[in-house]
């Protein structure tokens, strides 16, 4: 009976695993198949198996039709800059909210919590108007010039997304539960608040930094609506809007799958690299609840 129950549980887990893995496997396998084979295999197990006429043509077409390496480089720059700046800025604010006493702290905390419920779609239009009026300083023909606006640049995809109320709150929760005795001992030794943050809090908060890094990475790597609105030129285009090149009068699903596979790999790699810390951090946060 016990074995049967165990077998049932495994079968159920297998089914769940299949449901989650199917889209990923289908995407990767289809990226190596010609259009006709993709549709011929659609309703059989062959759809997720590397069988039939496998080819790299779809990938060749992706590289020929789009500047995917440039988009890739842009996404890496945007994502890494935002994540690194975000880890610093968000954790620093969370540190001041959780470990320091100053007037107005509760109001700021309330504002951070309140901001978490506002989605990007709600602020995207006013944000666009704002950045379109902000000039940047550039270098042209041997001199500094004030450029028209932030639009069409890498910074317009980085700076508005560095501070994030949800990540501040995650850091706040984690920092709040670290005993205050550490701070007091450091203060007695003459440490400044930044030294406490740098040498005591940060080293003790690896899991939450990993969690925020992953979540922020995913958020930035998958940015779609904002780059479509704020970036027109290829020079600053990230990977996600680039896929739209392949949707037109004639849609080639093989090429779309190849492009999607190519841009999904880094996300998988980052998740797998941080998986242990990510899970332990989430579990830890749950226990502390």
């Amino acid at each position, binding site marked *: 009976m016990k074995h049967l129950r165990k077998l049932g549980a495994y079968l159920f887990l297998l089914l769940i695993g299949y449901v989650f893995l199917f889209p990923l496997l289908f995407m990767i396998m289809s990226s190596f198949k010609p259009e006709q084979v993709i549709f011929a295999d659609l309703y059989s197990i062959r759809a997720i198996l590397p069988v039939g006429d496998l080819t790299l043509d779809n990938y060749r077409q992706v590289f020929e039709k789009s500047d995917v390496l440039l988009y890739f480089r842009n996404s890496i720059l945007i994502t890494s800059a935002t994540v690194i700046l975000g880890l610093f800025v968000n954790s620093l604010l969370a540190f001041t909210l959780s470990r320091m006493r100053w007037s107005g702290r509760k109001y700021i905390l309330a504002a951070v919590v309140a901001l978490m419920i506002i989605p990007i779609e709600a602020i995207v239009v006013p944000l666009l*108007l704002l950045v379109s009026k902000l000039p940047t300083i550039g270098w042209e023909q041997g001199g500094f010039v004030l450029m028209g606006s932030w639009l069409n640049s890498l910074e317009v995809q980085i700076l508005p997304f560095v501070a994030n109320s949800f990540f501040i709150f995650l850091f706040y929760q984690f920092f709040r539960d670290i005993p205050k005795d550490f701070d007091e001992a450091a203060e007695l030794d003459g440490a400044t608040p930044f030294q406490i943050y740098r040498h005591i809090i940060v080293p003790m908060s690896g899991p939450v930094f990993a969690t925020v890094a992953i979540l922020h990475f995913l958020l930035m790597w998958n940015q779609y609506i904002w780059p479509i609105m704020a970036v027109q030129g290829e020079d600053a285009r990230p990977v996600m809007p680039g896929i739209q090149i392949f949707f037109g009068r004639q849609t080639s699903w093989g090429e779309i799958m190849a492009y999607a596979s190519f841009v999904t790999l880094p996300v998988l790699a980052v998740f797998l690299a941080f998986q242990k810390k990510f899970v332990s951090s989430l579990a830890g946060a749950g226990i502390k609840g």
Partner: protein
Amino acid sequence: MKIMKVSLLSCAIMTTLTLDVSSAMAAPSEVKLWRHETSNIKEIEVSKATIERFNQSQAKWHITAEMIPEGSYTQTVTAAALAGDLPCVLDMDQPVVPNFAWSGYLLPLEGLLSKDALNGLIGSAKGTYKGKVYSVGQFDVALALFTRQSILEKYNLRQATFEQPWTKAELLDALAKLKASGEYQYPLAMRTGWTGEWYSYGYAPMLQSFGADQIDRDNYVKSEGVLNGEAGLAWGAFFQSLFNNEYVDRNPSDDKGFVQGRAALDYVGSWEMANHSKRWGDDLVVMPVPDFGGGPVIGGGSWQWGIAKSCSNPEGAAAFVDFMLQPEEIAAMSVATGMIPSSPEAAELTDHYQVGGDWRYFYDFTAAFAELRPATPAYPIISSTFEKMARNIKDGANVQDALDEAVDTIERNISDNKGYGFN
């Protein structure tokens, strides 16, 4: 000391600015251009070559182009208009032109473009709003009914001609014969799996051939009686019967039915000609769309070029658009992409579309049967409502209810927007 530093800084800035101004006077004025980026590499290459030729041909203007993915193009243009960041020259799908014109994004082209260029274009190559031209195109596409000679002979079906297209009865008779043969589970492919503008582009012409329309083109305000009148009802019943009789697959898993020989007839646009021709060779037959009573009708208007109202160099933008409309440039686009050239002079410069050319029938279909989509800013809501309605009818909804609901949605939206400039 502080004053000296400020003076030095001022001098440096002035020198930089002076250098900038003097160099700007010598250089050609920049004219920014956006075009949608398609997966059709040849189309993009021809556009880039045209821009290069224009830049080389004169020293007054310099076109700087940005390619923006087609799937997100309209959102990008709308966002840029909101931020006041539109380029001088931009291309857009013809049906959205009235909406952009009404929103104040575009300049009317009469007076900017040369009269010869404007007058030389076929009707479906011009996007209008309230009688003014706001966009012009280098090419168009045409709907047609594709089949194979061997199928026509095997099932004793008449080959429809430009002069005598199939009637509704002939189409239904052909579908009944093909279905009864057991050779085709779904004898007609109609791309019902496609989403977005295809429903309006592909199926509204059928509605119009029945004698109905999406909106009353006399006032662009009322849809009542035009969409949901007797003719509309007849179209809805016919459209639904195609699926109920299993002549057309309600939910096709792909759009390869005709190419793979699973469908005998293919109702689709001329852009598939190259694929079909490659697959079936001499056996391929291209027929006009059927006449459902009011004459054959096909959709008109493809991607076209306009000039933004915010453009600081409208003369430069107009010079480039004029350049693009030269017969040689239009012909170059057609030769590279196979699309229908938008002027008779350009058609004569191509092998496919010149009089007697092997694809000339597409040009004739466009010139004779093309009906532009309603030239109103309400078109986006008309199109999306029509798609929802046609899908519901396809899936078995009560035809009258579906038509009435669509009329209500369209008229409510127009009323909410104070008629979009029409009264």
